[in-house]
């Protein structure tokens, strides 16, 4: 977890938006969701899952370190409005980006049911933060080490069948999870928004690397999204496209001889300008 001083992004950031980071001169541009922001203090919070070279490299940064490049906020903000009863789902690292949506939906007067889940207890975070703005919070872990044993989709199914009326579902997390949530809500035809995470380069709409198929149309997730109607998204294509560089990613990881244990730090990095 990172707290980053960047007044110009903090000032403009809205729920659902992300930024692009480049750690050093040889680094790639990686997109990360703005999980929280404070315009007055000029800070934002990023939560990062260490999955490959760039994210592991971010993990070894220390308090006071500087990120070379930071651009944002990017993407269209979430559509925040009064819907009535909303179910907000964050799976794994998706807990971070669902949090600002929870907060904003609550402020907009909705009745908020939040569902967060992870593989196991150690990977859960922000239960308190999410709870603070939720009328109800359901927690799931795959192994049952905390909350209900099972997937977040099980909880979604339960809530959907129990509540007489659900007006909106927002799901953020692994692609497979978002796909499963969209399947649960397709039958009862509950509007379902998902936040897509294809591979990006510029994240300004100039390369098309992030293209996704939504209802038979090609969209650029970085500028047309990242949020889309979950019932129209071609999730299988997205999963495939996210694997485009698996071989190269392995090479990159081998090259980066970082003797590193995944941990979570809270510290401050600032960037110039």
């Amino acid at each position, binding site marked *: 977890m990172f707290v980053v001083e960047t007044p110009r992004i903090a000032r*403009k950031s809205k729920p659902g938006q992300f930024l692009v980071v480049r750690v050093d001169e040889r680094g790639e541009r990686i997109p990360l969701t703005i999980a929280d922001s404070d315009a007055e203090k000029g800070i934002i919070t990023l939560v990062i899952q260490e999955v490959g070279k760039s994210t592991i490299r971010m993990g070894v940064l220390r308090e006071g370190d500087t990120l070379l490049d930071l*651009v*944002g*906020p990017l993407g269209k903000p979430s559509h925040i409005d009064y819907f009535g009863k909303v179910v907000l789902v964050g799976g794994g690292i998706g807990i971070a980006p669902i949090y600002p949506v929870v907060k904003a939906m609550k402020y907009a007067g909705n009745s908020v049911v939040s569902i967060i889940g992870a593989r196991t207890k150690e990977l859960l975070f922000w239960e308190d933060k999410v709870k603070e703005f939720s009328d109800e919070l359901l927690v799931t872990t795959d192994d049952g080490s905390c909350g209900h044993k099972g997937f977040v989709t099980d909880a979604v199914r339960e809530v959907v069948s129990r509540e007489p009326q659900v007006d909106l579902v927002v799901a953020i997390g692994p692609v497979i999870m978002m796909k499963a949530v969209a399947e649960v809500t397709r039958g009862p035809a509950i509007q379902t928004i998902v936040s897509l995470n294809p591979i990006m*380069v510029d994240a300004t709409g100039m*390369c098309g*690397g992030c293209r996704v198929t939504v209802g038979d149309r090609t969209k650029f997730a970085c500028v047309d999204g990242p949020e889309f109607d979950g019932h129209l998204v071609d999730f299988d294509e997205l999963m495939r496209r996210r694997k485009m560089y698996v071989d*190269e990613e392995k090479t990159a990881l081998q090259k980066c001889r970082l003797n590193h244990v995944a941990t979570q730090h809270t510290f401050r990095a600032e960037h110039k300008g």
Partner: protein
Amino acid sequence: MEEWKKHKQPMRRQDPHVRARNFDEVALGYTEEEAVQEAERCLACKKSPCVEACPVEIDILGFIELVQQRDFLGAARKIKEKNALPAICGRVCPQEDQCEELCVLGKKFEPVSIGRLERFVADWEAANTETLAPERPAPTGKRVAVVGSGPAGLTVAADLANLGHSVTIFEAFHKAGGVLVYGIPEFRLPKAIVQREVEFVKSLGVELRLNYLVGRTITVDELLAQGYQAVFIAVGAGLPYFMNIPGENYNGVYSANEFLTRSNLMKAYRFPEYDTPIKRGKRVAVVGGGNVAMDSARTALRLGAEHVYNVYRRSRQEMPAREEEIENAIEEGIDIRFLTNPTRILGDGKGWVLAIECIKMRLGEPDQSGRRRPVPIEGSEHTIDVDVVIMAIGNGANPLLPSTTPGLETNKWGNIVADEDTGKTSMEGVYAGGDIVTGAATVISAMGAARRSARAIHDYLMTSRK
């Protein structure tokens, strides 16, 4: 006429077999002797039709005469009166459609190699002199924001700084230069040259703010509210077109913008030393016939491809790429399939590209562009096995900035509507120029528009009461 005067003095280039596998610059430039000899070919026509054909009206005869007299520095200064970026233009301008097209010598023989001379003179100046920033004029106290740091943005910034205005450039990327850094590859335009020009603009007092996506990080209205009295929009034509044929989202299909950005800006050609990956296809098909297509094809080759096809729906004659680059590409072994158009991309069942299906074309009646329209020949479908496909069929206007700037008029293609002579848009104090106004065009036309607009912005700043 002596035989040597009939032909262009050839420019030394890396051997095609060698250069097809490295990213070093292909063309090596003239020596002093070669340059003087080429300059001697000039007929010194009184009317100088070449100058009329130059979008920024460089005094071509004037600089060529200085080369003849071996006053290379004087020649460089002469060019710089009109063109701030000669080392770049000498390398990338489509001279055969501009100055050299109208060269009188070219009517019977080969035209004078004006582009190569421009390049020589600019390189000579860089190698032999310290670039001194001109003296700073008295500050006017006026502030101008420039959005985008491509050739248009850099030119307008330099011109306005030279007039005493305080100029800030806002650039979305982490590096300045626009297409010159992310699009045109190192082997055609070394990045050190672009960097030199950017440094020069900075030395004039221009402030460069990178990682600012105008429309998201800050809006045009906010810039005006923050005390910039004028804004110049030069965001280029950055939206890649796809063909909308089946299979375009398979893994292995790129837009040229993505492919070139990964390789050039992110230095994926040096992966894993640099972190950004790129698919190194064994058999690559590039679709399109412009500079972008040539650059993509030749980059794919240098990334190690065994066979690179260039699929183009018209014939050689209609190809919009620079003549020299088409020749270079063919020499390097790019397999250009003229009068051929893709109909769909075939996958391997696991989501990866396997082949591209194409159809043969013939040329029919001329279309609006005056070029003969390609018409498919029924039943001529055939497939080419490839593992990477690069779409280089054109770029349009990125809607991001216009859509976040209420009151800024655009046309039906999304280009900003701006007066041709001044760059004035529908918003007071807001000007625009370059590819965002004209659609994808050339470096020199973007610079020309910027230069005209700089004059208009100066007039506006000095007369407006704001």
